[in-house]
Structure formats: structure tokens, C-alpha cells
């Protein structure tokens, strides 16, 4: 019984982490119809920025609890700098092209950022485990977990709740929903679609960077860390239905649980299991679990 509990708790922690990244990906797709391969690079950038800021903060001998502020600051900085740069500097020239071509555009951005990261931070690994250990640990039914992981779950829940509230309750959220449903009509009704795109891409970038920044203390930050994340996040949003927020939540939960179960019971199929689930879901529900019907072209 204890084992099952461990699977579930690990699954929840893993799902929370996935959700923070996937929700950004699905947001960008929903609004801009771009399946953003560079999302993995934004994640890696967040991790590197966090590693640098936390490292500098601690080596200056300041209060260790401030390092959490540094994690958040890193994510916000990456979002505010990289997001607008790429949306205004590149993507806006590409709107209207085929979805697949847009995937390739972001693939090119991904390749460029991978090398840019190596140029800026070098190829050595960075370690900033202080924020991870600082909070101590708690025990659940005899199993010990770091409080940091619990905090990750809380952050993920907060992100989800903020999204749900903002979309349903605020003016900006409603405008965003309108653009998701029909870009052209929204523009005709006077919504500044250009601004919505910019804000969306910045927000999505920030979310990916948040995922990276929060992961930085738990792993060694190395080149290539974004490559795997992007296909995992893909699996999540495709399972949930591209562009759906509820889908991203459910997809994260499914992928998280499946992977956790695989790691505990059958480590050999760990990587394989996630994509097997994705394939099965797509075969059963071609457009993912949550996806509106589309009109056919005659």
C-alpha cells in the first residue's frame, strides 16, 4: 500500500512540474496557433538564469531565503527579455504561414538558442541545490519528501487557479478567449490582436522559464536539458488537446502518473510509456481529450 502511495505522490509532483511548462505551450498554441519547439529552450534559459542569479546572491553572502526571490526573478526576466524579442523580432513576420512551417521556425529558434546558451554559460554543469534543501523535509505515511517538492505542487496549483480565474473573470482573460476562438472576428470587433499575441508569447515564455527556474535547484543545469522537456510537454498538450487549458491539466496528470508508475514498477519502459499513452490517446481521440469540433472545408 505504501508503494502505491509513493507512486501517487511522485506522480503528483511530476505532474505539477509538467503542468507549469505545458500550460505555457498550450497557451501559445491556443492563441497563436504556433506549436512552439523553442519552449524547451525557454525552459533551459530559465534554469540557467536561475542558477546564475541564485549563485550570485548566495556568494554575496545574503540571506539564503532570498534565493527563492531570485528563482522567480530569473523566470520573469527571461520572459520579459526573450519573449518580446522573439515575438516582435521574428515571429510576427511569420504569421499566416502554414502551421508546420511555424513549427520549423521555432525549431530554428530552438537550434539557435541551444548554441547561444552554450556561448553564454559554457558547457560546464551548474549546481544550485541550496533552495532545494533549505525548506527541510516532511514525512507522509512514513515516506520522506522535501518541502520544496510540496512547494512546487502549490505553485502549480496557483498557476492553474490564476489561469482559470483570469480567463473567466477578467476583461483581459475574456478578450484572450475571444482571440482563441476566432482571431479575425476578434480583430474586426476592435481587439488589438497584435498586443494579445505579444502578451501571450511573453506569458508563455515566462511560464516555461518558471518551470526551468524551479527545476534548477533539483538537478544539475547542463546543456541540452531543454531537448527532452519539449517532447514531454508536447505529449502532455497533445493528449489534453492542443490549446486547451483543462486538457493541459489532465494531460499533465496522466503523463505524470504513467511515468511515475513506470519508474516504480517497470523502469525499462519509462520513456516509452509516455509516448505509448500519447499514441493510444490520439488513436482513440484524434484531437486529444478536450478539443472543439472544426468545420470541414468543402
Amino acid at each position, binding site marked *: 500500500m505504501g508503494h502505491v502511495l509513493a507512486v501517487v505522490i511522485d506522480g503528483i509532483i511530476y505532474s505539477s512540474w509538467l503542468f507549469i511548462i505545458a500550460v505555457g505551450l498550450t497557451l501559445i498554441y491556443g492563441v497563436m496557433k504556433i506549436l512552439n*519547439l523553442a519552449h524547451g529552450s525557454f525552459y533551459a534559459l530559465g534554469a540557467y538564469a536561475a542558477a546564475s542569479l541564485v549563485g550570485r546572491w548566495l556568494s554575496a553572502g545574503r540571506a539564503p531565503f532570498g534565493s527563492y526571490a531570485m528563482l522567480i526573478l530569473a523566470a520573469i526576466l527571461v520572459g520579459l527579455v526573450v519573449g518580446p524579442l522573439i515575438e516582435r523580432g521574428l515571429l510576427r513576420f511569420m504569421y499566416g504561414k502554414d502551421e508546420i*512551417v511555424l513549427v520549423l521556425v521555432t525549431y*530554428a529558434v530552438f*537550434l539557435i538558442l541551444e*548554441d547561444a546558451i552554450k556561448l553564454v554559460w559554457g558547457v560546464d554543469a551548474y549546481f544550485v541545490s541550496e533552495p532545494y534543501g533549505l525548506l527541510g523535509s516532511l514525512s507522509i505515511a512514513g515516506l520522506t519528501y522535501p518541502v520544496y517538492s510540496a512547494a512546487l505542487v502549490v505553485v502549480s496549483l496557483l498557476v492553474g487557479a490564476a489561469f482559470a480565474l483570469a480567463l473567466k473573470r477578467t476583461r483581459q482573460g475574456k478578450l484572450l478567449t475571444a482571440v482563441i476562438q476566432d482571431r479575425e472576428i476578434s480583430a474586426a470587433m476592435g481587439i488589438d490582436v497584435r498586443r494579445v499575441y505579444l502578451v501571450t508569447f511573453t506569458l508563455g515564455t515566462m511560464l516555461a522559464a518558471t518551470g526551468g527556474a524551479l527545476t534548477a535547484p533539483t538537478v544539475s543545469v547542463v546543456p541540452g536539458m531543454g531537448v527532452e522537456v519539449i517532447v514531454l510537454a*508536447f505529449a502532455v498538450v497533445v493528449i489534453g488537446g492542443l490549446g486547451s487549458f483543462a486538457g493541459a491539466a489532465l494531460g499533465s496528470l496522466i503523463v505524470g502518473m504513467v511515468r511515475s508508475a513506470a519508474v516504480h514498477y517497470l523502469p525499462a519502459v519509462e520513456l516509452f510509456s509516455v*509516448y505509448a499513452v500519447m*499514441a493510444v490517446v490520439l488513436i482513440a481521440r484524434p*484531437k486529444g481529450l478536450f478539443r472543439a469540433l472544426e468545420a470541414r472545408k468543402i
Partner: protein
Amino acid sequence: MRAPDRTEKIALLGLFALLAGGAFLPQWALFLVTLALAKGLVVLSLLLLMRTGLVSFGHGLYYCLGAYAAGMVGQLLHVGDAAVMLLVALAVSCAVALIVGLLLASYRGIFFAMLSLAFSMILYGLLVKSAALGSTDGFNITVTAAAGASLSSASRRYLLFALSASFAAMAAVGMHRFLGSHLGRLAPAVRDNELRVEYLGASVRRVVYLNTIIAAALTGLAGALTALVVGHIDPEMAYWTTSGEFVFVAILSGTASVLAPFLGSLLFELLRSFAYQYSPNTWQMVVGAAMLLVIMFLPTGLWAVFGRRGKRVA
């Protein structure tokens, strides 16, 4: 049998030029051209899919399958004959495509791309965890004979080059004829409007299924050729970045001519080799930048440079 048209003549002339010229190429250039021709086969198969309106982000699946099928013939059966390896690779990739194709045939657009990506990542996940096949390291392949005759290392290099060139020319001519045939002409029709194709009495599903299998066969063959040329295989061949690269070369080449994939593939290999040699730490950046430039300024592919034939809107 009708007389060969312009494209077919160019393909055959190109083959003769390659076969004659290959004997004088230095070893590195021979290797590069061989690899480019083999990968050109993959790009040609993507051209067929793109004409049908489909883009596969998981062609690494068949590429890797072909390579591992060839490798396992050597590893398990201790057969080093290139002909056997290539045939087995072709058979395995076709067999898998027969099943996977059934599932893929009802998907379009981004979902076709994503589902094929999932299948290739499944293979990647399996290979990475299979210690018997060398996990992430993969294993080496050596060709010792071709159709029964044993080979020296210099003659092996030329043979593999000649094989790739012949396959490339045959595939190009074969694809050209197929695209001009009744069945082949249905591909762009499916891309443009599926409903109308159905109303006209053709089965969209069958067209997509058939084209997926042809594409898989070509790609599996290319994977095996690559394995024989490079002499080493690893699961990276099934990773999504490999597939992404193929899609890029396909966009670079454009869908206007069956010869374009080989030209595009050669250009890409040259670009990568030189980028890797002159800036080993930033070669990905160079490739990425080239990709953006092509997408911005040559949206219908390289072939657009050659004038009238490039005017076709993709």
C-alpha cells in the same frame, strides 16, 4: 514504355556523372556525397508526403528501423552482405508501415506530425533501454561482402557510393513516374480538397495509406544505407531532432521536382560539415539561421531559384 522526359534524362545523366566522378573524389567528399544521397532518399519520401499535404515529424522511426534492421542482420545472424542487409531493412520498414500507416491514415496536419513523432519516440525509448543493442551507444556495423562477393575497404566505399547513387536515381525516376500516374496525381488532390476527391470516387484513405508506405520503404532503405556508410548506429536516429532535420531539408528543397531533395540534401550536408569545421560550438546556430533565411526568402524551396518550374505554389 514511353521515352524518358527531361527530369528522367537529368537523373540518368546525373547518375552517370556521379558514377564516373566518384572514382576521383577524395575520401571525405565521397563519404559526404554518399551520405547526402542516402538522406536525399528520406527527403524524397517527405516530398511525396508533402505533395499529399502531410508532414511527418517522425520519419526518424523508419530511418532508425532500417538502420537497426541492417545492423541486427550483421549482429545476430553474422551476415555482412550489403544486399541482405538492405533487403531486410526494406522488408522491416514496410512491415511496420503497414501497421502504423493504418493508424496514421486518418490524421492530417499537425496531428499527423505529432502522432508520427510519438511513434518514433516510442522506438527511441525502446532502443535506449535495450542493453543488448548497446542502449544509447548503439553498435558498429561492418559490410564484408556484396551479393556474395567479398570486399576490400576502398572498393566497399565506392560500392556504397555507387549503390546510393543508383538508388537515388532509381527512386527519383520511379517517384517522377509515380507522381505523373493516375494514383500519383491524386496526392495533390487530397492535399487541396479531400471531400472532392471522395465525391469523385477515389479513396482518400487509400491514397494516404499507400503514400505512407512508399515513404516508409524509401526511408528504411535510406536508414540502412546510412548505417552501412557510417558504420555505426545509435538510437539518436529515431530522435525527434533527426526527423526535424529531414523536414527542414524537405522545406529547403521544395516539392517542385523529384531532383530537388538530392540537391537540398547535398547542400545541407555541405552546410553542416563546413559549419561544424569552422565553428564547432555554434554550428547549430548556423543551421538554425540558414533555416530561418530559407523560410523567409525561399518559401517554395530552392527549386524556386531555377525559374519557371519553381512558380508552383506549395
